[in-house]
């Protein structure tokens, strides 16, 4: 056994003994245990050391081992087998020093403080036992070398918890907090990682409140790190490998409505158009085209829509006109139609006017429009003439 390994165990045992003297002042503890490590180490290495009750001379055991003794190697460095439990050792030490037994109830400390002391004492005892074990000799240095990894992980945990708490406060519920989404979040992550690492390196141990905060942060990280990692893995899964998995997320989308066919007046869709000639007389069968020759249609719905017409209670359905080639034309105005109740469905599911009904022009807005002065092709006005011929209408559009 090397001296360094031995000293590690001795130091652990000595600190466990000190933990049982915590009710004394630091000066008393120092006075009582100064040089304890040297004495323990020498006692362990003394092959001729007399064995008192429950004690084993380490040198003797070690010699037996080398001769092939079946003894558990861990026993060799289980200091509690050599010196007894740290608590009893401390009690003997303080009794011999005339300091009396531990004042458990003299000044009753608060529940939290007692609990904290209890935890610390237990931890030190466990640490001493752990560091005395053979497994620790094998795996201990490796585990210790992983500490920086834990510091970084702990920084990330602090970041996620902080962002998560922030989300709860401001009321985001769907947003993920595992990965920074903006420069501020990256800065926060960097800060918590630096804090965690510096804390781990022991550079931030200041006053008691700081130490308490650090310990609380560490405990929190230990508790939540596993759930957070699981959550993070499912988050990565949802984004990556299993991207095809369906998830429903409510996202507000601002999109422009499709440009619709039809004619609009004052923001309202037009159902039908009524043309009047220059004298104000209503025209039938007027074909309308725009300046590119495209048909102007108020609707081309295949008679599927029901239209609400002004002054008529029942909705109307319009029918298309047919041109001479048999093609359906929706740009011939006014559209004719019939109340929706007069429409049926044929065998192919198309909507057709029932046999008893016939398409008719819906009521015009007015029977006659005011006459206008329309410029003639030759400069004359048409006001004095009678009804224009269709040629004349065509001419006036040119």
């Amino acid at each position, binding site marked *: 056994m090397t001296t360094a390994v031995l000293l590690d165990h001795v130091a652990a045992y000595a600190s466990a003994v000190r933990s049982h003297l915590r009710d004394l002042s630091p000066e008393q503890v120092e006075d009582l245990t100064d040089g304890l490590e040297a004495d323990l180490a*020498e006692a362990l290495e003394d092959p001729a050391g007399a064995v*008192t009750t429950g004690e084993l001379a380490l040198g003797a055991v070690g010699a037996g081992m080398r001769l092939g003794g079946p003894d558990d190697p861990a026993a060799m460095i289980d200091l509690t087998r050599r010196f007894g439990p740290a608590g009893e050792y401390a009690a003997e030490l303080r009794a011999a020093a005339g300091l009396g037994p531990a004042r458990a109830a003299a000044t009753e400390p608060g529940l939290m403080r007692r609990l904290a002391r209890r935890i610390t004492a237990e931890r030190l005892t466990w640490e001493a036992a752990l560091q005395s074990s053979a497994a620790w000799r094998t795996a201990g240095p490796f585990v210790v070398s992983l500490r920086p990894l834990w510091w970084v992980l702990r920084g990330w945990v602090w970041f996620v918890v902080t962002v998560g708490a922030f989300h709860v406060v401001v009321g985001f519920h769907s947003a993920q907090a595992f990965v920074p989404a903006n420069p501020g979040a990256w800065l926060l992550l960097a800060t918590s990682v630096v804090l965690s690492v510096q804390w781990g390196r022991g550079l931030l141990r200041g006053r008691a409140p700081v130490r308490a905060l650090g310990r609380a942060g560490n405990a929190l990280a230990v508790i939540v790190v596993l759930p957070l990692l699981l959550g993070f893995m499912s988050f990565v899964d949802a984004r990556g490998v299993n991207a095809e998995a369906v998830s429903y997320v409510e996202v507000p989308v601002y999109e422009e409505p499709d440009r619709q066919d039809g004619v609009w007046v004052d923001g309202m869709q037009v159902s039908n158009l009524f043309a009047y000639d220059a004298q104000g007389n209503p025209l039938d069968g007027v074909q309308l085209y725009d300046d590119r020759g495209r048909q102007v249609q108020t609707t081309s719905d295949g008679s599927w829509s029901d239209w609400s017409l002004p002054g008529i209670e029942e909705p109307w359905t319009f029918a298309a006109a047919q041109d001479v080639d048999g093609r359906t034309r929706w740009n011939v105005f006014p559209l004719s139609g019939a109340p929706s109740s007069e429409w049926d469905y044929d065998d192919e599911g198309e909507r057709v006017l029932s046999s008893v009904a016939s398409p008719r022009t819906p009521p015009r807005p007015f029977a006659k429009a005011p006459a206008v002065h329309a410029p003639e092709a030759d400069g004359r006005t048409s006001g004095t003439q009678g009804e224009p011929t269709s040629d004349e209408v065509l001419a006036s559009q040119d």
Partner: protein
Amino acid sequence: MDTTQLLKGVLDVAVLAVVSDEDGYGYDVVRRLRGAGLEEVGEASVYGTLRRLYASGALSSYVVPSDEGPHRKYYGINAQGRAMLDAQRKDWHEFSTALTALLDAEGDPR
């Protein structure tokens, strides 16, 4: 007979006697006590006794650093300690003489 109980009463004078021979540190004192025949002396008891004697002014102490390990705390006897040792040695002789006489007297008639 439970010699550990007997030891408790005389540990002070035993430790003083060992240290008066030569300065010593904790385990060194233990070893010398055991070498002298007090096999069952408890290590922690010796260390505690050394501290108590030091605190009461009977011993002086100094620290010797070590190159390859923890430092050692040595104890040496001072004038007050020697006076205490002399007084207790006298007490012990009286006590042991009385007890020996008592035990031998009871054993003689056989």
